[in-house]
């Protein structure tokens, strides 16, 4: 692997991290109005004490949190706190550190997202490949338009409909949440069943909503692969159709799908965050919703930073692995 390819991808990752941190630092400071003074004024209005010099109290707070220093010093400080994994404390669940809150939520989002993305990627790709295959059963063609329509609708709207259908009209599944609140989380069969039981509906929303997207991309790839000479050659050699389909067709068509997987991970992640909100799932989306309602700014910023960094890192890994998977790719440095 040429070194300048790796360097270029690494630089891109650094750029994303830089943008994420700078946006997180800069945007709240760009907006006019002083959050400290307005918070103090709200507090005072609630307690009825009006004889305090707001400016002086605010100045004391600013000195305490280093907000009286010049902007560049605050910016450097912010970078420093990120490297020491200090994202502040939650204002709502004071004094729980933001990092701790995020750490407890990440496994939920990661598991939900990984499992549903893998399922929809493979089911959708197989479906798409079969539609492009002339010998495929006719009924498959009927399946595709509904899936394509579903994929044009946001995941979380699908989630609402699923939640209503399968936990209100027919109460087969729990009405949201990540686990049975009275159970103790252990590694045993009952717990795992409970976790899966709670994850099925949110995962289904993500899967049903993205199958059409993968099917569409795969069909286009498969059609162009099936038109190539090596397929004709394999057919004239008399190879069994299954073998041609799987090893001569699908294998070649699947690799470019990995690229679109990498590109669309961001929108899948955004969608999953909202699905978690609908299902009250204890992942990043769930705590983001609570943080926004409670104006818990440090938690909001922490989650945002986490989402961007995690995605940037995983794309970096995909970019490095992908050329190893597909020898046809040329390194564009």
């Amino acid at each position, binding site marked *: 692997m040429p070194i300048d390819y790796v360097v270029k991808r690494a630089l891109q990752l650094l750029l994303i991290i830089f943008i994420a941190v700078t946006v997180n630092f800069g945007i709240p400071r760009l907006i006019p109005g002083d959050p400290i003074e307005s918070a103090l004024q709200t507090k005072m209005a609630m307690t009825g004490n009006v004889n305090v010099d707001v400016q002086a109290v605010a100045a004391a707070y600013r000195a305490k949190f280093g907000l009286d220093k010049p902007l560049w010093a605050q910016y450097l400080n912010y970078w420093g706190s990120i490297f020491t994994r200090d994202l502040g404390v939650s204002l709502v669940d004071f004094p729980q550190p933001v990092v701790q809150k995020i750490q407890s939520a990440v496994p939920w989002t990661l598991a939900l997202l990984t499992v549903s993305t893998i399922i929809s990627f493979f089911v959708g790709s197989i479906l798409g490949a079969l539609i492009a295959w002339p010998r495929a059963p006719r009924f498959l063609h009927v399946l595709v338009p509904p899936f394509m*329509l579903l994929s044009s609708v946001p995941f979380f709207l699908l989630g609402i409909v699923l939640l209503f259908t399968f936990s209100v009209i027919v109460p087969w599944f729990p009405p949201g949440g990540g686990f049975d609140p009275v159970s103790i989380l252990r590694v045993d069969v009952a717990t795992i069943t409970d976790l899966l039981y709670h994850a099925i509906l949110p995962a289904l929303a993500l899967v049903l909503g993205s199958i059409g997207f993968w099917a569409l991309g795969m069909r286009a790839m498969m059609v162009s692969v099936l038109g190539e000479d090596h397929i004709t050659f394999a057919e004239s050699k008399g190879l069994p159709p299954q073998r041609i389909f799987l090893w001569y067709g699908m294998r070649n068509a699947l690799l470019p799908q990995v690229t679109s997987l990498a590109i669309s991970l961001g929108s899948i992640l*955004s969608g999953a965050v909202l699905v978690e909100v609908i299902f009250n799932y204890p992942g990043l989306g769930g705590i983001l919703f609570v943080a926004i309602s409670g104006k818990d700014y440090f938690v909001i910023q922490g989650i945002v930073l986490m989402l961007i960094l995690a995605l940037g890192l995983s794309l970096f890994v995909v970019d490095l692995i992908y050329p190893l998977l597909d020898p046809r790719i040329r390194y564009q440095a």
Partner: protein
Amino acid sequence: MSLATAAAAPGRRALFGTTALRGILRSPRISGSLVAGLIMITLVVLLSVFGPRLVNARLAAVGAVRPSQAPSAQYLLGTDSQGRDMLTIMVLGTPQTLRIGLIAGVVGLAVGLVLGLMSGFFGGKVDSVISVLADSLLTVPSLAIMVVIAASVGHMTVELMGLTVAALAWMHPTRTIRSQVLSIRERSYVSVARANGEGELGVLFREVMPNLVPYIAASFVGAVSGAILAAVGLEALGLGPNDVHTLGTTIYWSQKFSAVLRGQWWWWGPPIVAISFIFVALFLLSSGLDRVANPKLRQRT
């Protein structure tokens, strides 16, 4: 707006006369999905323009009607648990959602068009900076950055909402326009124009731009659709405009009052139907436009 841009693409040939119009409708470039998408979008736009004049806006205020009523002859779409008439909210909210999408779509497309043209035409360092920036931002989960912006804004309005979404709506148009400019400027008729002594700007506006029109229309539909998706998501998180109804904020309130678990389907059902209708229409329109822009797609199906 979207209608005008979309119709401009096939309209290039309609200039020759009305008989050409019939030819266009039979042309293999015009697919069923383009027509269906156009009809659906026209319906939504008509409702948005004339609907708000036909309803009494005061019924959308808290406590205006009896709360939590299922649909009936009096309240056609029922009422929510804060005593607002759902039909009124829907008629008032749909245009606001469209407005956010249009503002973000127009701004995103304009920025994308300028950057894409610069990138494709000047090449070199300008191109590298723009492409790297667009590529990097494309991989960022846009909802995350928009959440930071929207959470920092004290008083959210429809216009600010549109601009927030537009901040991350320009990358796809930039990339599409850039790659098309790169391909068009290498074609022989551009060389002919250059040989005839046409200047750079003349080449840009007289040779390249007219051929970009279908791509611009397709990018516009894509940008509007992406913007509405992002805006509805932000609104569902509770970051929507403070003082008007939109489809997304309606979902937020229904979620806040657990309308799903309480079985009040008439609260979240209508916004879901409306949002899905808009998305399906835009999806049909964009796949129809793809076919106009890229005739090679026809042979594949």
